[in-house]
């Protein structure tokens, strides 16, 4: 059964009037502005431009003077001087975009767009640019230079619109790391965690309506908060410092109480969340699968449910991001490894960069599977009508696919291939087009920060100053080629 938001409301018996809505929904429906959501998929250690290049775009490039030939890292061949716009680009025939086509469900080609040629040299390239990718800055391991675009968007009231969770950040990594701090940041030196254990994520998002361990985890968090609230209240009763110092404790208490309120809002959404929650950890093998692609599917399913369920309006899905986390093994793709012998994630990517065909194909397939998951989320959102606006949730959701270092394993950060989906109602020209910008170094080259500026406009704000390309910045503002 396909659940739609309207169906949820109907199930709740609240379709007839807002008076019956939970406080959360009353708040949302009272908001006059249109919904604006953002989903960012970040692939670790490079997305090869060739994998997003359709045949018709290659022809358009040729007509503009650029022959990409068999190149995988296309920027080296770019010789055009103005952006090449390919409107009839048949996106699904690109090596990693087949899932956009009708074979995977309703075609998503006409709700997608591809950008090639964007650069972000400031990030430094290499195995990973860490949070530099989402902040257009130089941000080494553990030291974000500034906040990332996801946090900026999530902080905007017009985006959050009363949802209880500012942003949901989920992902997969190599190894057993539960939290990945590589990719997102709340601010300078404030890395934002990405939850890499699907079970932990489930307990956090849907624990209130889960059975077994999930609900226990949710309850434990509540008990922890209650314990802390009691402690601060006790401390305040005997506090002997002056009012300025006292305010430090009072501020902590307010924060705790705010968190308790959030827990209660989620609890209030119980029936609603019950309807959207994905399979529970003990009901699905995806949660603990050895295959990162399986775990990723669990995470994407959860994020989709969080969006449809109204838990959040900003999602980050991190696919092995960060210099310490990109080395993933793919047992479910073992047939693609030469001789069926698994090679470590780093070595496989290294081999691909060296041109080893089997590993080139492996990378193409990995990106393809990632895009397949993104497309499945897009289809779910597209199948869900908005309650407070015309169109579908996808129309009000900008979905972005990018890498965390640019174009390849040892990236020079000279080209950042981008796939966009949805967001049509927010002004994005995701109509099947591909835009290829002139190469890095050309005056008409544009940068990843310009894409983030575009997202700002989709969020209803001028974020043109965002993106610390520093003196390497070419021009600020949105990309007119995909923004109306």
């Amino acid at each position, binding site marked *: 059964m396909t659940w739609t938001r309207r169906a949820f409301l109907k199930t709740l018996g609240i379709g007839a009037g807002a008076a019956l809505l939970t406080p959360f929904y009353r708040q949302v429906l009272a908001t006059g502005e249109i919904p604006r959501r953002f989903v960012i998929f970040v692939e670790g250690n490079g997305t090869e431009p060739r994998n997003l290049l359709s045949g018709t775009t290659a022809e358009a490039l040729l007509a503009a003077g650029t022959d990409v030939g068999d190149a995988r890292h296309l920027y080296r061949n770019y010789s055009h001087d103005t952006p090449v716009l390919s409107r009839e680009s048949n996106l699904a025939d690109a090596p990693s975009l087949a899932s956009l086509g009708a074979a995977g469900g309703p075609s998503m080609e006409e709700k997608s767009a591809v950008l090639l040629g964007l650069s972000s040299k400031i990030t430094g390239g290499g195995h990973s640019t860490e949070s530099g990718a989402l902040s257009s800055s130089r941000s080494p391991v553990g*030291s974000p230079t500034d906040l990332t675009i996801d946090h900026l968007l999530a902080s905007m009231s017009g985006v959050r619109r009363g949802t209880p969770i500012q942003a949901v950040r989920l992902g997969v990594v190599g190894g057993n790391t539960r939290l990945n701090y590589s990719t997102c940041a709340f601010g300078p030196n404030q890395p934002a965690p990405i939850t890499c254990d699907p079970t932990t994520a489930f307990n956090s998002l849907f624990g209130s309506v889960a059975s077994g361990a999930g609900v226990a985890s949710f309850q434990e968090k509540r008990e922890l908060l209650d314990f802390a609230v009691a402690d601060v209240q006790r401390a305040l009763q005997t506090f002997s410092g002056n009012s*300025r110092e006292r305010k430090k404790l009072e501020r902590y208490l*307010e*924060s705790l109480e705010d*968190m308790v309120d959030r827990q209660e809002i989620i609890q209030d959404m119980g029936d609603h969340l019950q309807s959207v929650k994905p399979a529970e950890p003990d009901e699905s093998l995806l949660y603990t699968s050895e295959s990162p692609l399986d775990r990723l599917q669990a995470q994407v399913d959860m994020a989709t449910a969080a969006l449809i369920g109204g838990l959040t309006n900003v999602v980050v899905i991190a696919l092995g991001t960060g210099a310490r986390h990109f080395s993933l093994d793919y047992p479910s793709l073992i047939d693609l490894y030469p001789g069926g012998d698994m090679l470590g994630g780093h070595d496989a990517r290294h081999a691909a960069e060296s041109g080893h065909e089997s590993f080139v194909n492996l990378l193409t397939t990995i990106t393809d599977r990632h895009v397949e998951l993104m497309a499945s989320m897009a289809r779910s959102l597209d199948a869900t009508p908005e309650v407070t606006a015309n169109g579908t949730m996808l129309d009000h959701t900008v979905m972005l696919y990018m890498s965390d270092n640019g174009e390849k394993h040892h990236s020079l950060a000279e080209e950042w291939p981008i796939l966009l989906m949805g967001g049509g109602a927010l002004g994005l020209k995701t109509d099947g087009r591909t835009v290829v910008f002139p190469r890095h170094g050309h005056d008409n080259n544009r940068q990843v920060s310009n894409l983030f500026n575009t997202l700002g406009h989709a969020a209803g704000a001028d974020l043109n100053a965002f993106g610390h390309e520093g*003196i390497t910045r070419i021009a600020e503002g949105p990309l007119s080629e995909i923004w109306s």
Partner: protein
Amino acid sequence: MRASYVSQAVAFIAAWFFVAGCTEDPDSQWNQSQNSATENQTENQDPNQEEEPATPSGNDIDQSLLFLCLDDDVGYTEARIRRIGRSEWTRNTGHAAGSAADKNPFDGLPTHPFATYSDGETLNESVLDIYLDSVKSGSYGWATRDRWRAGALSSNVDEDSIACIFDDTSPDADCIETYTAYLLERGVLFRPPTTEEHQALIDFATNVLGSEVPDEDHEDGQQAARRHSLDRIFSAAWMTTGALFRNELGEGPVDEYGRSRLGDWELANAIAYALDGRAAGAPGVYARHGLAWSADFEGHMPMLRQAAMDGTISDPDVIAAAVRDYFGGLDEDRVDLNLDVRDERRISRRGEYWMANGLREFFRQWLGYDAHINIFKDTPSATSAFGSEVHSDYGNLISGYYGHESRLVEQMDDMIARIVAEDEAVFENLLTSRTFYTPATAEFEESSIVNSTLRTNYIYNVTDRTEPTREDRWQVLPDNERAGVLTHPAFLASHAGAFENDPNIVDRGKWVRENMLCQDVPDLPITVEAAFDPETRDQSARQRMTEQVESRTECMGCHGLMNPLGYPFEVYNHAGFLRIEDHGAEPDGSSELRNMPDPDLNGPIRDAVEMSEKFAESPYVKRCFIRQVFRYFMGRDEVLRDACTLAQMEETYEESGGSLAEVLITLFQSDSFQYRVVSEDL
């Protein structure tokens, strides 16, 4: 200054230059900048926080007044509570820098010059959100007790009284009481808990353990359930105000000046945190599969813990003994790195001198020499004797990715540690030492990572092979090339932009004015719009500055404070390499210092080497150094009532032959450090 602070400063400098129009009158700018600062503060301030008092402090005060100890000067600090800092939390829970636990959200406010400042530091919703996700990451040593596992706590594995909590299927009330008391005192509060604190945790733990449900389908179901329970108990303990906020409220009787002395535990921990960035008795940690540890059963700085327990912390000799012991020294094994550096190969490649964490953090934050890791460097070799062949090596100096040699920032740590550990004429040696710790290269000659390792010493202009011995890594550089910390590549790269002809003159000059001379430069006027003409990219920074800025008198109100102090560094490029040419001309670091706060500093100088040597001889600059020491270790700006403390610190420095340890002892024994006043009219 801390990295974030320096990053802000770099951004500020960049902004300064990309806006034109200046003003001639520094005073009018001063007023404007103060208004602007107030507006910014209001915008960023917690709405519940009251306006800051207007007591002059820090660089606002005439330095000569700050060292004038008058009879009626009574030193004290406002009673305060201090939220735990990021690295403090990491160390107190027994975890390494860079670990998951180290991702806790307790970074200081970026507006603070030092991470030790506590005003306005609390937990808001964002901080709490992250903390709730990360608090459990610190629990490892308190939820397991296996001595052969890295990360086990030395204070726990040999403590028999708490074994029951790990071993008993159903721990009884005595066991829970003992474990929670031990956890609170040795792992969370670092002082005996109050009855209320202890009882609350007993109740919580009893409830948690009572509801524990082992997974009977798994062999280690009981063990896993217990670990989970102990995680929860640890998390609860670390959510308490006592864990997150350290009291410095004063506990003794109120004296005639309205002051009360810090309690024994307050004082012991105040010294411990200042000196080593962790609590007195913070747990020692097993490393390398139990084959090494950071401290034994008694934990870190046990002397201070013991002195708090037996009340001898009030004895000045006890404080002095503790500081001398925990301050720094020579240690071939570098035990101080055991917690943070798990790979023995990296430890053996570091210098043999160590300094306490507080000392290292002070120098890093004051000099800001770790900021370069966040600053993009285009063509690091530009204008140096080298070409693109050193770019990978330079990148590796920053990241340390290839091989096991130290990074640039660690090389500067080690250089300073040697000066600190020798503890003679510290200030002078900081500014004049030619002994630099450099990376070894010889062992990489046949290596597959040769492109990133063989030329890492070129940054110091050392092009001979450097053998992988400590003796060979210590290099005495030519007198005319570098002198002390202001000429270290890590410092130079941290106070410069992306290009060699960026306005690094301003960045470095402003830093010197504010941090070596303790004088402020007015903030950038909001009406100013200035920029180096982008068409002059092929010119030297000096030419761009003189032609585009110094030709305009209205700019010199502020630039006159900065540029003369920035030009001397133009003999180095933006990455810290020594220049051999500068856009077709000889490198030129000459400058004319005028109207300096110490008249002896006035006059022409050749370059940053000569400027450093002049600074080293200046009593005025030395006083500024003492002020910086005061700020970091006191955790606040100095004010006039600290004059006697500052004067005593200066006197101690002179009498001890320039011992920083003795200066700290004087500070820790001072009224400013030990007395508190609770006042509402601040």
